[in-house]
């Protein structure tokens, strides 16, 4: 299980490499996983209403947040260590990053559990959680290429967004963005798998959604929260999704600090594997021993 996830982690960008024709079975399996990325990507392409409205709404979200913060800044001194210019960039980058890491894996998993189709998924010769992660990645790549890039271009035209110019910041950001995806998806998988143990996890999924948006720093950067609250949030995984990568990209965190941020992300990625493995095994046991 963890070995499998290791495979996922070591393929940033998730190229749609097809299996070699003469490859062994392990390679074939790997190819199958890449196919899940590809298929989800194609599926997303099929929904064009979602696509067009998505770009508009994401741009609008950035705009509204930009003007809200502009009004808050008013006369222009720094808030919580953010200058007004940094805040603009932070808002734009966080919303666009959300386009990549956001997915509905929790909802998909809990639907599979409730309508019983998870039993079929569990007897197929692949790892269900990993397949879900791959599908999430396909979705993320779709939004990255078709939402995030054009959306970012629009945002840069409309608002004074300052993006860094050195390539190292970009590479760092992309790596961190990938970890944002992993951590957010892991939280989704955990929430989804809980449907095995809770009668109705609808409320929990809604709560999770709200909590992630707020506590990840998407709505308010964590340094703006009152002291006691930001110190609580600093020990939760959510900040690793938006706040930390956003801080790096806006140039607030530099040098060695970047490695610290990456370290925190990797740490959370590893820590979150534990409940997933545990839940996955408990779920299998529940499914096969108690019949669901």
């Amino acid at each position, binding site marked *: 299980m963890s070995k499998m996830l290791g495979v996922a982690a070591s393929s940033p960008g998730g190229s749609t490499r097809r299996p070699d024709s003469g490859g062994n079975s392990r390679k074939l399996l790997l190819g199958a996983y890449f196919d899940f990325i590809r298929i989800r990507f194609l599926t997303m392409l*099929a*929904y*064009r*209403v*979602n696509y067009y*409205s*998505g770009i508009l*709404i*994401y741009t*609008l*979200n950035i*705009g*509204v947040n930009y*003007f*809200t913060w*502009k*009004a*808050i*800044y*008013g006369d222009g001194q720094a*808030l*919580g260590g953010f200058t007004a210019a940094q805040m603009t960039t932070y808002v734009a980058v966080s919303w666009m990053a959300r386009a990549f890491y956001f997915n509905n894996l929790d909802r998909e998993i809990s639907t599979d559990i409730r309508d019983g189709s998870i039993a079929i998924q569990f007897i197929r010769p692949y790892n269900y959680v990993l397949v879900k992660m791959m599908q999430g990645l396909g979705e993320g790549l779709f939004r990255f290429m078709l939402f995030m890039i054009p959306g970012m271009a629009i945002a840069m035209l409309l608002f004074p967004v300052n993006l860094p110019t050195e390539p190292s910041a970009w590479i760092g950001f992309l790596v961190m963005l990938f970890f944002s995806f992993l951590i957010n998806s892991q939280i989704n998988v955990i929430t989804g798998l809980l449907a095995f143990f809770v*009668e*109705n996890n*609808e*409320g*929990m999924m*809604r*709560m999770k959604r*709200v*909590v992630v*948006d*707020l506590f990840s720093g998407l*709505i*308010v950067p964590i340094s*703006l*929260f*009152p002291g006691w609250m930001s110190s609580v949030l600093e020990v939760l995984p959510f900040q690793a999704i938006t706040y930390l990568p956003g801080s790096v990209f806006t140039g607030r965190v530099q040098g060695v600090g970047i490695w610290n941020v990456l370290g925190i992300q990797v740490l959370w990625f590893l820590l979150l594997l534990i409940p997933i493995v545990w839940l996955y095994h408990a779920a299998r046991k529940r499914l096969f021993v108690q019949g669901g």
Partner: protein
Amino acid sequence: MYYFGLVIEYLKNYMKTRLTYRADFWVEVISDLLFQATNFIFILVIFMHTNSLGGWNQNEVVFVYGFFMVPFGVFSCFVNMWGFSERYIVKGEMDRILTRPAHNLFQIFLENIDPPALVGSFIGLIIMAISGSNLGLPFEWWTIPVLILFTLSAVAIYTGIYTALTSLSFYSDAPTGILPLMYNIQSYGRYPVTIYNRAIQVLLTWIIPFAFVGIYPAALFLQRDEMKSMALLTPVVGLVFLGIGLMAWNYGVRRYKGAGS
């Protein structure tokens, strides 16, 4: 009368269903409140760093927020279109709806009725009362009737917008992704729209008029005269958008009946 009787009947069935899953009821109430609370936290955090948002102080912004919750709760209770596309189009339940002798949209509203959402409306009223008394707002003879009128108008606006958006499912691939994104946008109607640029103001006032479910009507109670005329327009906007929503819906149903699933 017939439709009112149906509302009662569906509510009864809702309660019976819910009594079998009592824990869910409270989980739902709590998650609804938490959803609202995040926005509340946003306001609190903002005002820790500034005294005014576009010329509005904390109590005023909180009051607008309280008002916003009232129609939103009523709307969420009676109009719940989440998952329409999956449940009614993909799984084909629309066919069943169409073989029943009541207006199809009304049946769908009733089948998805969600009373826990009303808790949010009560909390909104409490927030209005507290921030209103902090501000020393006068309680006039017209306060309650106008509050009711504005609430109904705002519900009509929500219903119009979401019905129109949901009716897209009749035309195209599942537009399920739009509704959650809309949820983000509607909350922007709670802040003084004057802080936004012209384009966003026009958008929130005339195109997707979420300013009319928050800041404009609330401004009347706050005695903000610069928005008074907008506040008085709320019922008109409500009627217009409800009309647009229903037209889009009926048109969509006609198309569904032409094309099938």
